[in-house]
């Protein structure tokens, strides 16, 4: 299975500022995703991070608010811009490598963001 790390693991930020979250995988993967999990809720897909091109965003999420980069097959960043308290959530990256036999998606440990 893929080993995924995220930085930072948690942060407390002031409203109006931005935070960039990093996701690093120990092996090359074809697909990477970013999810948000608000307190007490299930996971919601934000976007698919495409290597070398613009991310594909789900309904309700826009690039200006959540810019995403994916410069190579092992790394991606998610920026939460102009934060408000409503952005307080856990942000998780996940990876999928369809070349594996089970097509299993693996998740990182998450970044817990608190916006004051």
């Amino acid at each position, binding site marked *: 299975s893929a080993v995924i790390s995220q930085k930072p693991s948690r942060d407390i930020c002031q409203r109006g500022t931005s935070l960039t979250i990093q996701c690093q995988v120990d092996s090359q993967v074809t697909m990477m995703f970013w999810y948000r999990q608000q307190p007490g809720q299930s996971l919601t897909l934000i976007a698919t991070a495409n290597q070398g091109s613009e991310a594909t965003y789900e309904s309700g999420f826009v690039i200006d608010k959540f810019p995403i980069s994916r410069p190579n097959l092992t790394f991606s960043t998610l920026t939460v811009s102009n934060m408000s308290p409503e952005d307080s959530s856990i942000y998780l990256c996940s990876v999928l490598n369809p070349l594996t036999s089970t097509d*299993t998606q693996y998740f990182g440990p*998450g970044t817990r963001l608190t916006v004051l």
Partner: protein
Amino acid sequence: LAKTTQPISMDSYEGQEVNITCSHNNIATNDYITWYQQFPSQGPRFIIQGYKTKVTNEVASLFIPADRKSSTLSLPRVSLSDTAVYYCLVGDWGSGNTGKLIFGQGTTLQVKP
């Protein structure tokens, strides 16, 4: 992507077998069924995946009837450490597909001593 329906919560006692059933009436021919476990403040962890009949690994078993419109995750002899949220997901994540996972609300399993 097929929608899934699970019980919101379940209680059990240590040492019991727990069965969590998931309904997915609109499952497509190429869809797989996957279960994840999530502990508080952690990312979801893959438990088991199957297409039809029965799949077993060191952690759980997954029972899928012939019509594939439901599936049952079976956890043998649960312990307190199995207290978590369990998610059932259905989708086709093979090469060339989007790979998107759509999470439902999951089942919160509480194991009591």
